[in-house]
């Protein structure tokens, strides 16, 4: 798909206490249209800076950023405002205006663009409905829970027909349950409105739950990027392994058994492997560790499995490998 946002050799350097801090180092990235694009990294990796370049809160020191092919750096006046209508932001701490009601918060982006009161009220109520906040229009932000505040934030971001929603740690201030609900809402709005969602987070759980593309950042650089399905199918992908961790329980395989690290990108299609190995080759298997996760809309699984190849010819091991390959099961490095 076409990239909706592109970063080309973007660097950002801050002056802090007389010292240069390199927040981003010559970074290039394409964000595909329609993606749920997760950017993950520890604090200080530069992901917040990256987002603040996309919503024009900061300007890159060098490099360029393109929105549908046109540069956005240095936009002023009406073009800047038009861009910000299309690329909206929600925040970790919601950043609602406390002196305004929910309705006034949501309609503000339209009010500052001179849209008539009746029109913007109608649109704001429609959006409050869409995010599940019916009847809260006259409440003040201080009267809402964290999850409700983020819903207001989402409604406010989307009211000017945004095409891209930038989420700056948007669930980090919420409890696990509320995080799930907000992610479900974002997924629903993405498909309902055809949004591209760019979500930065330090939480792998958030990425696993929602993202279909993932980028890992570290020290102002991109370590790895790709869509979840490709990452899971790549035996050398660090991200693929991070998305589906399988802890080793410590004990080594028994004498004559071999251990495989198996990645099943679609567990429903592929998990017959164990019975097939038994039926076709007479190989017994034992799961050491592993788990199933819903990733990028698929139920993916990762297992560490020991196969009993005692008294088996090397031929059997080859046959086992070819069955695994046939079913597109990725073989990780054996522990």
């Amino acid at each position, binding site marked *: 798909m076409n990239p909706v946002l592109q970063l080309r050799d973007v660097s950002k350097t801050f002056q802090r206490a007389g010292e240069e801090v390199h927040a981003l180092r010559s970074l290039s990235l394409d964000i595909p249209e329609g993606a749920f694009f997760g950017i993950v990294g520890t604090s200080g990796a530069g992901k917040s800076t990256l987002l603040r370049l996309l*919503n*024009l*809160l900061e300007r890159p020191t060098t490099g360029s950023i393109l929105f549908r092919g046109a540069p956005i750096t240095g936009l002023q006046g009406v073009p*800047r*405002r038009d861009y*910000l*209508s299309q690329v*909206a*932001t929600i*925040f970790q*701490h919601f*950043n*609602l*205006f*406390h*002196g*305004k009601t929910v309705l006034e918060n949501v309609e*503000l*982006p339209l*009010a*500052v*663009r001179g849209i008539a009161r009746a029109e913007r009220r109608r649109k704001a109520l429609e959006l409050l409905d869409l995010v599940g906040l019916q009847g809260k229009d006259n409440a*003040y932000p*201080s*009267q809402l829970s964290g999850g409700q505040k983020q819903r207001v934030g989402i409604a*406010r971001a989307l009211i000017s027909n945004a095409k891209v929603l930038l989420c700056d740690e948007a669930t980090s201030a919420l409890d696990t349950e509320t995080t799930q609900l907000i992610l479900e809402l974002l997924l629903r709005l993405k498909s309902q409105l055809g949004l591209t969602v760019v979500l930065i987070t330090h939480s792998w759980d958030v990425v696993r739950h929602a993202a279909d593309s993932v980028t890992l950042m570290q020290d102002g650089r991109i370590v790895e990027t790709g869509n979840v399905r490709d990452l899971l199918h790549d035996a050398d992908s660090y991200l693929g392994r991070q998305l589906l961790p399988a802890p080793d329980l410590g004990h080594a395989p028994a004498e004559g058994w071999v251990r495989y690290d198996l990645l099943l990108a679609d567990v429903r299609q592929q998990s017959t492997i164990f019975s097939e190995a038994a039926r076709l080759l007479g190989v017994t298997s034992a799961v050491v560790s592993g788990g199933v996760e819903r990733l990028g809309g698929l139920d993916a699984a990762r297992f560490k499995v020991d196969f009993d190849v005692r008294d088996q010819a090397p031929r059997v091991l080859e046959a086992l490998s070819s069955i695994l390959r046939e079913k597109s099961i990725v073989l990780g490095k054996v522990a």
Partner: protein
Amino acid sequence: MNARDWTQYVPDFWDALGQTLYMTALAGVLVITIGIALGLLLYLTAPDSWSPRPAIYHTVNTIVNIGRSIPFIIMIVLLIPLTRAVVGTPLGPAAALVPLTVGFTPFFSRLVEASLREVDPGRIDAARVIGVTTPQFIFRILLPESLSGIIGAATIILVGLVEGTAVAGAIGAGGLGDFALTYGYQRWFTELIAIAVIAMVLIVQSIQISGDAWIRLRKHKR
């Protein structure tokens, strides 16, 4: 009529009360208006703020600091030529408006600046990504979000002005301070001092109570 009958000066008390209220109210309007403007200027042009303008910021900052460092009673004397030029006379309640405004605006602009800085930077980011212009930012976001703080600051400055009118009264402005000194202290009418003090206490109380009540009404909006 007994020459020592204090009640004969009650009409003068009402005049003095009127003068105090006149000075407090008019100086209040001027101080609050100019102070909010200066506070906004300080806030907006500060380094790393909405629209950094180091030259403007440092100029206004220095002027405000100078204004705040001059004791009010000296300020009145220093401003006599200006007062004479503006009002025509350095005496009377109207003339007192000049030193009251010049003397209290710097402090109030600092209080306003501090209230504006209380607005969470995250909300300012939110305003920026909505794409508001500077006037929209000031009137739709910055002032409404910091209104409770500004009301509190206005309460402080109005109470200060009541006291300021009494000081100005000592050098010819009239008002309750002047009344207490001339009739109470110089003519030994303790009753008149008491009445003047009670009146000032009541004025201060009503300012404070109104300010607090207004802020309480806004409790959801903070």
